[in-house]
């Protein structure tokens, strides 16, 4: 490609680094943006510049927002005494999409991992212990992934908070719309063990 298109090539290379995009799909996306210059490209560019400056982690819970304390932590309505502990911001957003949980969150920023040498100090566990006291939390919901690392982290936190607060975790079992035939053995076993009376 000629030198006059270097910027576009650079843009394509950058877009190709986004999750879910490869070089081919990045090329299509860039072409689409250029064709919709005023409708998409300019607003997107402006917004990305603004977010690049303003996006930051909430100092209280680790959520991503545009102020030092996020909207969820600021909201008085969400001071229900319930605190939902999640691994990552993506998990927080998933919980928020469901609209079921009305309390506040705490984002750990990962899980304990021997392989990656991630210990309690690398996560926001000390801050969580402080919040339980300062925000008068009555229940901590451990909404961590059903993986070995996720559950190891959940048990570690439970040990730290034992006797100080009510501790609960998410149920494990058949997902909505799930067909038994397609489920792995572990999920079926967990679902059967957690069966309930109708």
């Amino acid at each position, binding site marked *: 490609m000629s030198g006059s298109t270097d910027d576009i090539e650079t843009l394509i290379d950058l877009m190709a680094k986004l999750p879910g995009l490869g070089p081919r799909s990045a090329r299509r996306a860039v072409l689409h943006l250029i064709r919709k210059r005023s409708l998409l490209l300019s607003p997107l560019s402006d917004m990305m510049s603004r977010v690049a400056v303003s996006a930051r982690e909430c100092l209280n819970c680790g959520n991503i927002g545009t102020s030092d304390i996020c909207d969820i932590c600021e909201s008085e309505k969400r001071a229900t005494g319930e605190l939902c502990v999640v691994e990552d911001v993506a998990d927080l957003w998933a919980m928020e999409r469901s609209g079921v949980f009305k309390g506040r969150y705490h984002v750990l920023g990962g899980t304990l991992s021997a*392989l990656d040498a991630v210990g309690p100090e690398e996560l926001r566990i000390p801050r969580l212990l402080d919040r339980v006291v300062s925000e008068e939390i009555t229940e901590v919901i451990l909404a961590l992934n*059903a*993986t*070995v690392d996720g*559950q190891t982290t959940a048990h*570690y936190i439970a*040990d730290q908070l034992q006797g100080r607060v009510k501790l609960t975790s998410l149920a494990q079992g058949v997902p909505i719309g799930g067909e038994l035939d397609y489920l*792995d053995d*572990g999920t079926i076993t967990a679902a059967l*063990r957690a069966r309930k009376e109708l």
Partner: protein
Amino acid sequence: MEWRDHGILLTTRRHGETGAIIDVLTQDHGRHAGIVRGGASRKMAPILQPGAQLDLIWRARLEDHLGSYQAEPLRSRAVSAFSGRLALSGLNAVTALLSFAVPEREPHPDLYKRTEQLLDLLEQEEIWPLAYLRWEVALLDELGFGLDLDRCAVTGTREGLIYVSPKSGRAVSREGAGEWADRLLPLPPVLRGEGSAPDEEVVLALKTTGYFLDTKLAKSLGNRPVPDARSRFIDTFTRRI
């Protein structure tokens, strides 16, 4: 290059958006890594959890390449591990120690068999710590740091063995210890496969095996620290007593 084997999954690490690099203790090919294409997918991620028993086909152009795995589940141990703190911390200790200590691509069929038997006992919390102790002794033995607990290193007697020499890993009797007794490690009967194996003795025995893991095995691996997962397991076990 292609082979088929059974293996126990030790670690999974994401590779790119959809792939995963897994580290597996196989029956005939030792600890062996490889890529699983689509290993991070919704279908494969629940299968590729530490402790899972897998049927594996490994393919690579050359033997020293990383290669790729095709993995089919034989037995999931995640639910057993999630059944309690001790099971989960025990599984973490076993997989972390194997990843830490076993050299890559060096077959250890006996260790594989023992590990498989140990992990199948995960939900039996009453006997698991004792089984783990026996496995750890076997691990030391398999890797060249075995304990010789049959007779006293000083007097040759088979009676009254209550110490282990931290230098040689050999048993020492009360008489043989003499004035060196305070420098020797404890040898509880459970470490020799004797007695009723109360939990307190198992903890004591784990301190002795831990000494050899720290000072002999870890030293031979470039002084890397033994994974924290082991001490977390022992903490969990000690709290239960």
